[in-house]
């Protein structure tokens, strides 16, 4: 948490002024009982009406000054807290964008989003509250005691006993209830899981007629949650009654000592009233403080979650300038893998000892079962992941020697999951190439078989795409993402199982038009369908992270068992 406070540095002034003005306001508030005491002693005791009115004016004056101070404090607090959160968010966003996929995969997207949104809000709220109140409340509690000392030293010792006692009680109850609140939250998560699960599995549950069973299980969990909630409520509900008793015992003690002191002529009646008032001010502040502590505890928890993201360091090191250190033996190859292995974290190797060379302009098919490492392999070409051993070369240069942007400019990769962003069709296509001309756009659409999609939309290229491309079908999205890659005119085009939603005829037409493109890029096609890759110049068969066979369709049918198995499972009857 503490490391995050750096982001307050641009708001130093605000962060200091806000509590300062709060203290000023509190000081004026602390003067009120003294003024009231003066009204009672001098005004009533001395039957001095002008003095009373004068003091009344002082009270209102104090109120106005307090109001102004408080407004200033609130303003600075809001400015500092929001500014802090804004800078932190921007920095975190930047940091996330710099992390490698190894880290991103491990953390998971949904966590990152919660940390960027709800955690940040809670954190902002926490900073705001701390600036406003964290100094104020203890200041009033201690200040009330100090003021009590100025009124009468001996009576003030009542405060010296009461305040630590109160602190202990508040602290103890918090210590007990905070873990309980956490348990409540966990149980609630359990209910959430159950509800979600029953929605996603509704068909299975109904098919098996398990509705009543599920209801019984839900009720059981719900009862447990309710029991914990009640128990937590019971303990946290003690806070107010106990503090109330302690403060009032303090008041009683003040009355008694006050009585003795007044009897001895040491203090006046008004002073006793003032002392009693200070005691009730403490009670009010304590309630505020308790709420504040809950907010702060939550904010600290969220701050730690945010900080833990900052602590991650990208495992990919980037060079500032591309080192044009071309390996002569490899300069004619678009892509070379040299004994490459890949490991995600501590798990088993996703790829082991992969070696192959691809000439410029070749078409490479990659096939294999799920989890055989197909996507991992192509993800290493634009260096989404670094090899744990071995080397990957693009145009004869080790990918680690490329400046990231230089490398990625050469590559157009279409991922398995077709992703489009909010905006027009045009703005999405321009992601591939900001400077694309009208003709280039049309050409890319033609190659990717996406012309008819654009033609049939209102506004054509200006048609608005919803978030996640929700207003397009799977096949439409896939074709547009392919167009986005083609528009780049990349040296290397990678299609990672990105035609799965296309029917076979469209898929075939797409492959044909890519082959006929005017500049002959090196193309990688990853697929589960033998039909999609069987015409490639080179087919790589992956099995369990290893190359099981490599060659043309005919060669593999003869030599590679796994390829034959896949092919036969899809074409068996026809061939037989």
């Amino acid at each position: 948490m503490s490391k995050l406070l750096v982001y307050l540095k641009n708001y130093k002034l605000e962060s200091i002024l806000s509590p300062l003005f709060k203290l000023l306001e509190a000081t004026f508030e602390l003067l009120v009982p003294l003024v009231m005491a003066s009204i009672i002693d001098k005004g009533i005791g001395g039957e001095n009406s002008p003095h009373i009115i004068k003091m009344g004016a002082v009270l209102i004056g104090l109120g106005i000054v307090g109001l102004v101070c408080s407004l200033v404090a609130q303003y600075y607090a809001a400015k500092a807290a929001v500014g802090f959160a804004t800078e932190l968010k921007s920095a975190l966003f930047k940091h996330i964008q710099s992390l490698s996929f190894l880290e991103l995969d491990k953390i998971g997207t949904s966590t990152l989003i919660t940390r960027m949104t709800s955690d940040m809000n809670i954190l902002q709220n926490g900073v705001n509250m701390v600036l406003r109140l964290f100094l104020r409340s203890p200041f009033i509690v201690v200040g009330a005691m100090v003021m009590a000392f100025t009124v009468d030293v001996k009576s003030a010792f009542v405060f010296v006993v009461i305040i630590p006692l109160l602190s202990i009680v508040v602290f103890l109850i918090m210590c007990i209830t905070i873990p309980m609140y956490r348990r409540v939250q966990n149980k609630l998560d359990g209910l959430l899981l159950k509800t979600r699960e029953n929605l996603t599995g509704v068909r299975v549950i109904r098919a098996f007629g398990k509705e009543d069973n599920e209801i019984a299980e839900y009720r059981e969990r719900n009862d447990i949650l309710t029991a914990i909630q009640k128990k937590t409520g019971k303990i946290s509900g003690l806070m107010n009654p106990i503090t109330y008793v302690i403060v009032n015992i303090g008041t009683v003690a003040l009355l008694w000592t006050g009585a003795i002191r007044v009897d001895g002529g040491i203090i006046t009646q008004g002073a006793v009233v003032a002392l009693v008032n200070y005691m009730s001010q403490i009670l009010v502040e304590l309630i505020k403080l308790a709420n504040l502590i809950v907010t702060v505890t939550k904010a600290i928890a969220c701050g730690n979650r945010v900080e833990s993201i900052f602590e991650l360091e990208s495992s990919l090191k980037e060079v500032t300038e591309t080192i044009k250190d071309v390996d002569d033996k490899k300069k004619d190859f678009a892509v070379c893998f040299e004994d490459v292995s890949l490991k995600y974290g501590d798990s088993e190797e996703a790829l082991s000892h992969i070696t192959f060379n691809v000439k410029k302009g070749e078409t490479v098919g990659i096939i294999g079962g799920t989890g055989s490492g197909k996507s991992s392999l192509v993800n290493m070409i634009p260096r989404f992941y670094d090899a744990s051993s071995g080397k990957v070369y693009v145009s004869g240069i080790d990918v680690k020697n490329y400046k990231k942007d230089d490398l990625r400019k050469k590559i157009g990769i279409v991922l398995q999951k077709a992703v489009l962003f909010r905006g027009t069709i045009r703005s999405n296509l321009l992601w591939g190439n900001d400077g694309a001309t009208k003709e280039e756009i049309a050409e890319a659409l033609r190659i990717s078989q996406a012309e008819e999609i654009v033609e049939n939309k209102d506004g054509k290229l200006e048609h608005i795409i919803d978030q996640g491309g929700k207003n397009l079908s799977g096949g439409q999205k896939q074709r547009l993402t392919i167009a986005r890659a083609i528009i780049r005119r990349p040296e290397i085009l990678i299609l990672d199982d990105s035609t799965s939603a296309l029917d076979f005829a469209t898929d075939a037409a797409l492959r044909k038009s890519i082959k006929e493109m005017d500049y002959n890029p090196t193309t990688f096609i990853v697929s589960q369908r033998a039909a999609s890759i069987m015409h490639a110049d080179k087919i790589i068969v992956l099995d369990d992270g290893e190359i099981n066979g490599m060659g043309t369709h005919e060669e593999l049918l003869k030599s590679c068992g796994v390829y034959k198995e896949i092919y036969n499972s899809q074409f068996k009857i026809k061939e037989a």
Partner: protein
Amino acid sequence: MQRKTIGKVLKYIDKYIDLVILSLILAAVSVALTLYIPILVGKGIDFIISAGHVDFIDIKKTIIQIVIVVLITSVIQWWMNIVNNKITYNVVRDIRNEAFEKIERLPLSFIDSHQYGDIVSRVIADVDQFADGLLMGFTQAFTGVVTILGTLIFMLSINVRITVLVVCVTPMSLIVANVIAKKTYLMFKKQSEVRGEQTSIIDEMIGNQKVVRAYSREKAVQEQFDKVNDELKKCSTKAIFYSATTNPATRFVNGFVYALVGVVGAIFAISGNITVGQLSSFLSYANQYTKPFNEISGVITELQNAIACAARIFELIEEPAEVEDLVDAIELKDVEGRVTLENVSFSYVPDRKLIENFNLAVKPGQKIAIVGPTGCGKTTVINLLMRFYDVNSGRICVDGHCIKDITKKSLRDSYGMVLQETWLKSGTILENLTMGKPDATREEVIAAAKASHAHSFIRRLENGYDTVISEDGGSLSQGQKQLLCIARVMLCKPPILILDEATSSIDTRTEIKIQEAFNVLMEGRTSFIVAHRLSTIREADIILVMKDGNIIEQGNHEKLLEEGGFYSKLYNSQFAV
């Protein structure tokens, strides 16, 4: 609308009416006692006049009184807290149970057409928000009102004229709070709009970071984010600051009231209309009287919010449930597996016709392959057979009984379903396998798992059959999950099967295993198969060809090929090279 919702909430509370009455009594007593204490303190102060004029005996008496009252008050306060918690959490539990029960009874059409996230957030987040509001309503609104009334009475008993003064001035804070609230409402609305915008950027860009990187858009995206971030900063600072002025402003008004009471009271005291002790209690009352006014605007927003949340929950609870079984519904027994569809018409939305006048007669043990491109509506058939949806016209019969005359449970029990979107509940493997047959012995389960090729991988799991799997199968692979689903059906041996063949998400070896398991399962059973494999399709007794939700062709492989329609086109593009 709002009144209706409140009425419904009251119905839930009605069950705990005795607790509510107790809570009200406790609140009244606790407020009365709380208010009584300043009087006692004031009395005590009046016994301390000046040196030599201190009445120690009476002070002692007063002190004992104060201590007793304070102790009683605190016990009652605690009791009241417990009672309020009990009411709130019980009501919330009841509502959640009812909402969940409704989910189990909702027609599939509702669940399919709503986002899960939305329904979940109603049952979890909205109910929670409602609970907060309800609790706050109980503790603050009620005690607030009682406090105002109580202090008013006490103040009147001390001095009528000063009381009138307080009553006239106090609503000022309410007005101030209201004005500020109205102004800030728009700012908050703007803030949440911008915040929503920012969340979508985060969601979109972080969620699809790979695409962002692939196109080196990091900088552009960062700029886009920072732009919205800066806008949000402006909105937030404004909204937070303006809303934060409420408290100081109302506090100022209260301070003003306090000063007024002090001055007027003191002048009255000179003329002997009121003692110093009384003035001290009066000041303390003036403070307590104004406090609920400060809180009231907050409580009102909170309550409004709670009612809005409650309305969303009731919307769910009041959704009509699935059609009930007929009173004299038949319990299907010893099903042979004869399925007939007669003149069936169906569509999800009236203006988009899907299936029209469809006829199909399936003899026991026949295999029906459903074929078509992805997204052609194969689930529609499943929806109708299992009666997840009702046909618009015509009828579907099993063994000659119209499915509307059969109990839903016995109808669904006669089907075994394995879908490609596997679903497993969080729990042990054993619990998942015995879903259809809770009284199965472990031996039976293992036998079913062996028959469906699931035993070998289950055995290798850390705790074998007792391994707990998390939501949606957790770390199991797609293929393993599907094998478990097959074993689940294998165990209850239903007379009719609905199977969904694997497409591309499963590797070849597992696929072969699944296919073998399917074959074992299908022996002698009527089976509907959403088919992708040529062998399955060719061996089927009847092929249903679907396109855009319609069943456009029907017949066996040879007949359909001869006809030269969509099927033959599909067949040729897919399998002819």
